[in-house]
């Protein structure tokens, strides 16, 4: 291309202060807003987790009443999934995707701003019933479990209504972000940046956006039906009027299963950036990974009923969903294979991002493999709704996306702030998190095998020892995250060495051609990719 226009003529001072953050349309600002919101929500969700483990430290404890316990476990799930993980991954998407593809910003900057600012009200809606309860209105927030099964959710108190409206806002926000990401990736790539040259993080977010567009509306529709059953006399989920409670489960899990891949893909993409950097070796199997993302995307929408094996499924259904679920193991294995292939015969160093990335591969591996076990429709009679399931999805969701987000945080924090973090503190953070996490959740596999159900505030005596171990682990994991907070503050305040453009010796990608931190408008001239 011969003529590349200058992109951002200066029109005066950049806005500062509150106005900047409220009205910004800059993708890096919005990315940071998402990340900060997500980090705060992670802390809140983490406090809920510690309350749960405090209640379960021993049988017969009364830290929380059964009613409050049900509210806390529900909010823990909803906050971690919708207010922590999804916003943080969206934050990285906003911050990085334009830079990675050589674009000046996202395609629809104002939509971007709206998409973010829907989130704080959604979080407030979820938690507001606590305040209402304090003044004698209602019985507190939603307490049905994050899966909000009918008819319990039809009967439950006004916390469910607030949660439904929160879902509407969250759905709108996610859809706005997805639309923006799809348009940006299709339309705003710099010259020479073909689809098959896109960094894998960008590909992973493209697929995530496709999934969000395909399935989040199902959750919104279901939530609307639930609202109607609760207040407008409809009978979607009640047998009396010709409806069926199990229909909710189908709607929810049609969203819910792809949702776990929505949560997973961004960090899987991140792995394909971090591992090559610290192995000093190009990513293995670039095309294979893209095909794997496609395969997982397509398969993910046809396996939802493996969450429903005990709901009274006919034989044909059990066989179909079991075999379809097992099929997903193949493209997931492709991803693992490619990560192993990247690390194999590399020249490895073990800075904090690499430690968390290796931890991700290991722990998500356990999560995925135990998913294979759960896929068996008959054995699932024992695992379903037991602590085996709780352990599985925490290995998959914490061991995967959360560890991945922490890895991404350490990896790109110097780029975003212009300063390094403390490597020593980072290593402590990693080891304490890894050990604490395993101490928390490995015993839970055995609790499930022994017969302990989930979502109970008190339990039979034979489960006591392992629960105590698990609660101690939770304390370790919780405390360890304070080290992450330290490192984020340290990098933000510049307590340690300044970071170069490249930050890491072998980092690749357009974002590492820009200064650390990148200027408000990243590129002064549009890059051309050869």
């Amino acid at each position: 291309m011969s003529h590349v226009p200058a992109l951002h003529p200066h029109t005066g001072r950049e806005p500062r202060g509150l106005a900047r953050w409220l009205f910004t349309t800059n993708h890096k600002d919005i990315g940071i807003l998402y990340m900060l919101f997500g980090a705060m929500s992670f802390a809140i969700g983490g406090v809920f987790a510690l309350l749960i483990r405090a209640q379960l430290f021993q049988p017969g404890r009364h830290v929380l009443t059964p009613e409050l316990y049900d509210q806390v476990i529900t909010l823990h799930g909803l906050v971690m999934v919708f207010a922590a993980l999804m916003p943080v991954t969206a934050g990285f998407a906003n911050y990085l995707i334009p830079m990675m593809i050589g674009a000046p910003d996202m395609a629809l900057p104002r939509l971007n701003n709206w998409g973010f600012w829907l989130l704080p009200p959604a979080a407030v809606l979820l938690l507001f019933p606590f305040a209402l309860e304090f003044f004698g209105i209602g019985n507190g927030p939603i307490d049905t479990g994050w899966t909000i099964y009918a008819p319990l959710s039809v009967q439950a108190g006004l916390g469910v209504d607030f949660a439904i409206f929160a879902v509407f806002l969250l759905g709108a926000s996610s859809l706005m972000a997805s639309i923006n990401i799809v348009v940006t990736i299709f339309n705003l790539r710099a010259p020479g940046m073909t689809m098959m040259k896109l960094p894998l993080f960008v590909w992973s977010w493209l697929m995530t956006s496709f999934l969000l567009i395909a399935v989040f509306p199902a959750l919104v529709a279901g939530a609307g039906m639930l609202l109607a059953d609760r207040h407008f006399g409809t009978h979607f989920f009640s047998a009396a009027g010709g409806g069926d409670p199990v229909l909710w489960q189908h709607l929810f899990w049609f969203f819910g299963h792809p949702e776990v891949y929505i949560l997973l893909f961004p960090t899987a993409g991140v792995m394909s950036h971090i591992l090559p950097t610290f192995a000093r070796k190009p990513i293995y199997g670039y095309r294979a990974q893209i095909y794997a993302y496609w395969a997982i995307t397509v398969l993910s929408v046809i396996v939802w009923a493996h969450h429903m094996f005990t709901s009274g499924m006919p034989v044909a259904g059990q066989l179909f969903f079991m075999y379809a679920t097992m099929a997903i193991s193949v493209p997931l294995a492709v991803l693992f294979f490619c990560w192993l292939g990247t690390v194999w015969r590399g020249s490895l160093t073990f800075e904090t991002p690499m430690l968390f990335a290796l931890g991700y591969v290991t722990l998500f591996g356990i999560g995925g493999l135990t998913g294979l076990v759960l896929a068996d429709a008959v054995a699932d009679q024992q695992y379903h709704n037991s602590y085996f399931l709780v352990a599985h999805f925490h290995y998959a969701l914490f061991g995967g996306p959360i560890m991945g987000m922490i890895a991404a945080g350490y990896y790109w924090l110097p780029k975003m702030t212009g300063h390094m973090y403390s490597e020593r503190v980072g290593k402590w953070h990693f080891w304490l998190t890894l050990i604490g996490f395993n101490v928390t959740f490995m015993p839970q596999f055995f609790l499930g095998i022994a017969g302990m159900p989930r979502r109970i505030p008190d339990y039979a005596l034979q489960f006591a020892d392992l629960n105590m171990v698990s609660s101690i682990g939770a304390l370790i994991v919780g405390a360890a995250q304070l080290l992450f907070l330290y490192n984020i503050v340290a990098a933000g305040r510049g307590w340690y060495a300044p970071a170069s453009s490249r930050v890491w010796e072998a980092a690749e990608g357009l974002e590492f051609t820009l200064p650390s931190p990148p200027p408000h408008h990243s590129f002064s001239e549009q890059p051309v990719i050869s």
Partner: protein
Amino acid sequence: MMLAPLPRAAANRRLAWIVALAAAGSFAFAFALVPLYSTFCDLTGLNGATGIAAPAAMKEAAARWVTVEFTSTVMPGLPWRFEPVQRRVRVHPGEPVTAFYRATNLAPRAIDGQAVMSVMPETAATHLKKAECFCFERQALRSGETRDMPLIFFLTPDLPEDVNTVTLSYAFFPLGSGTH
């Protein structure tokens, strides 16, 4: 805050609307799932859903015997007694059967109810056809009234060979009193 107009702004907006349309399609699909699911249940017997057929559709009866057992559940809030008159019958598939359920309204005012049928095993449910059932309409009972409510059904002759017991259940739900 002023930004120079991005290149291809119009193309971006158009693609954005197309993607938004896809999202709207997903939303519509979710609502379409409601009747789709209902139809799927009727076709496959999922949830114990049975079919309706006119008596004329009955074919030649098979030679074997199948036991049909009856059970009932009264849902909370319905002050009725509701039980099958007969615990079980033995039928030939293809042959019409009449069974009765007896309901008594124990409340001091008229109460309406709606019955929902469920049949197990699911493989049998699609093979049970109702010619006449009190579950087709809401039932109104005056205070203190007892009524024997009939059900006329048949099992189709192609009922799988390995099914020799079928359980037929009704759950009776309250519908409030008088008009609605």
